[in-house]
């Protein structure tokens, strides 16, 4: 059980490419931190620097207050689960899990105890004598987790552990990782490119792009108050609609005017704008698809548009629409809210009016791409 602290960590490859710039993060004991970002953003590299599999070009990594920069992976007391599981193909499941314990010269009785115990928890007791190639993807995944589990190490590292599984299995394993975490109660660092995994698993999420940290925060924080356009678009699916428009301030009131409509800003958002003393300016207005509603009739605050594609997702509909100037937007409508007559009217080419409330808008500066409500 330990804290992990990264201070000014940089990774510069031999070809002078910088993969990670000045990474600072303080991970508390027993915290579950998720690094998330598109591929090539440096999240895996950062994790591998913590593990000792990559050299640290600059800065320090501390585990439990001890600088581990010069320590070999084996001396860092960490456990790791790899994306492709990295099971030793020539060993049985039992030997795979026992490998690290045998290297520690633990007595065989104790090893037996630990391995069967872990296998019990993961439900792989029946497969202990099999070789990895005779296992399914999900089972291999469990073995990989079991191998990391028996080590009782200070930090548990997971590098995209679910990305090789199919969608259904992924959901199931995700839930199991949450359970596992409650059982192990240790520090986790988890790397993924999937924002759903990040949101559901993490106590805190670190969103990265091009080697920089874009935002660190709890799932709620990054969802409700994305620091910039990148985070806003990355978190949430389908992704946030982005509308270039103008923010107008008159006295203490703000209005936005997307596609000719006039929408007032109210609630917390208005207060935050006032707090930051934001004046009139060109902005990019962000609205999540689930926050857009269908208006009953055209009005000053509604935007007319044409339906292009209607995706039926079961509990909800994803409506792909385009406005009069051709901008494409996505609207997410719960199926329950619609009468069957309304639903049958939602065919390609249908004319719709959409609107959204002033409470759910996100305002990003057109130039700096930063959220105007974050007060920076």
């Amino acid at each position, binding site marked *: 059980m330990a804290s992990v602290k990264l201070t000014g960590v940089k990774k510069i490859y031999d070809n002078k490419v910088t993969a990670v710039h000045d990474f600072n993060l303080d991970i508390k004991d027993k915290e579950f931190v998720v690094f998330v970002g598109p591929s090539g953003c440096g999240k895996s590299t950062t994790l591998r620097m913590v593990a*000792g599999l990559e050299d640290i070009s600059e800065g320090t990594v501390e585990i439990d207050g001890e600088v581990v920069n010069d320590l*070999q*992976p*084996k001396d860092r007391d960490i456990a*790791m689960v790899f994306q492709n599981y*990295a099971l030793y193909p020539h060993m049985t499941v039992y030997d795979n899990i026992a*490998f*690290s314990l045998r290297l520690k010269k633990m007595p065989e009785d104790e090893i037996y105890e630990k391995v069967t115990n872990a296998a019990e928890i993961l439900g792989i007791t029946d497969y202990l004598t099999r070789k990895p190639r005779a296992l399914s993807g999900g089972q291999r995944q469990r073995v990989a987790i079991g*191998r990391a589990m028996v080590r009782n190490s200070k930090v548990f590292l997971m590098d995209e552990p679910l990305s090789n599984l199919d969608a259904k299995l992924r959901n199931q394993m995700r839930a199991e990782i949450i359970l596992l975490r409650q059982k192990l109660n240790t520090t986790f660092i988890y790397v993924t490119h999937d924002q759903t995994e990040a949101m559901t698993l993490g106590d805190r999420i670190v969103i990265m792009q091009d080697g920089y940290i874009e935002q660190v925060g709890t799932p709620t924080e990054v969802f409700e108050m994305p620091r910039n356009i990148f985070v806003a678009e990355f978190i949430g699916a389908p992704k946030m609609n982005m509308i270039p428009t103008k923010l107008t301030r008159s006295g203490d009131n703000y209005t936005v005017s997307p596609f000719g409509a006039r929408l007032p800003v109210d609630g917390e958002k208005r207060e935050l704008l006032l707090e930051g003393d934001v004046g009139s300016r060109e902005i990019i207005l962000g609205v999540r698809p689930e926050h857009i509603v269908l208006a009953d009739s055209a009005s000053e605050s509604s935007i007319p548009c044409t339906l292009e594609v209607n995706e039926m997702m079961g509990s909800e509909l994803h409506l792909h629409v385009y406005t009069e100037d051709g901008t494409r937007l996505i609207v997410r409508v719960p199926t329950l809210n619609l009468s069957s007559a309304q639903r049958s009217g939602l065919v390609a080419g249908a004319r719709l009016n959409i609107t959204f409330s002033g409470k759910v808008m996100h305002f990003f500066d057109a130039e700096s791409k930063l959220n105007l409500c974050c007060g920076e």
Partner: protein
Amino acid sequence: MSENTVMAPKKHMGLKTSRRISNTAIYVLLAVISVVWLIPFICILLQSFRVENTMPVGYVIPKRWGIDNYLRLFQTDFPKWYLNTFIIALVSSVLQTFIVLCMSYALSRFRFKGRKLLMRLMLILGMFPGMLTMIILYRVLADLGMTQANAVPGLILVYVASSGMLYYVSKGFFDTIPKSLDEAARVDGATRFQVLKKIILPLSKPIVIYTVLTAFMSPWGDFVFAQYVSMGASAGKNVAVGMYGWLNKDQIANNYTLFCAGGVLVAIPVTVLFLCLQKYYVEGVTGGAVKG
């Protein structure tokens, strides 16, 4: 093979017929190839049993059969040559495999300074005709007393010492073993040496066998260098050098069938070994060629 063509069901004649014709053509081709490829070896075998004379002749089937040639082999230095070659092959295959594996594992798994430069330099070194270096190697070995009658240790030394250059195929093999296995093992608490011993080597059986096999086979065929080092001393010759002498202009009339008998005795163990381990050899050459 003809059975196959006759038995084909008689539906969809067009497609089937054309396939049958082309398959028959291929069978004929393969049969011809097989015969052509085997003829020389069958000839050697047959001639090794020819006892009516010992010269090269214009016919294949012996007029009188016998094992005189094989018996005569034991009155020559052939057993000594055979033993020499066998010792060289055995020792150098073990040591060479060790060296090649060290070299290729280091080049495949470690990213140290100068690694690329090292590989490029070895590529360039490989372009020099190795034959040239024989002159000096002979003199050096002579100074060490490892030539002529004592050629066996000398040959082993030279084969083994320069075998680091043959890292290419096995490095290609190591490259295909996922690096994450090493990493997982290192996180699990293994040193680099333990990674090699417990993870990589158990997974490398095919390439180890390939390396041993090629290293074992090459001394049987090495001619130039062995000839240079033994310098005419019969006690230091290997089979290739010794038997080459039998086909000299002044010896061929007496020793031609002897050569055939010796050839058979040399070919049998190597071929049997090779056929048993064929699978690994094929894996090795294929991998090596694709990696380039």
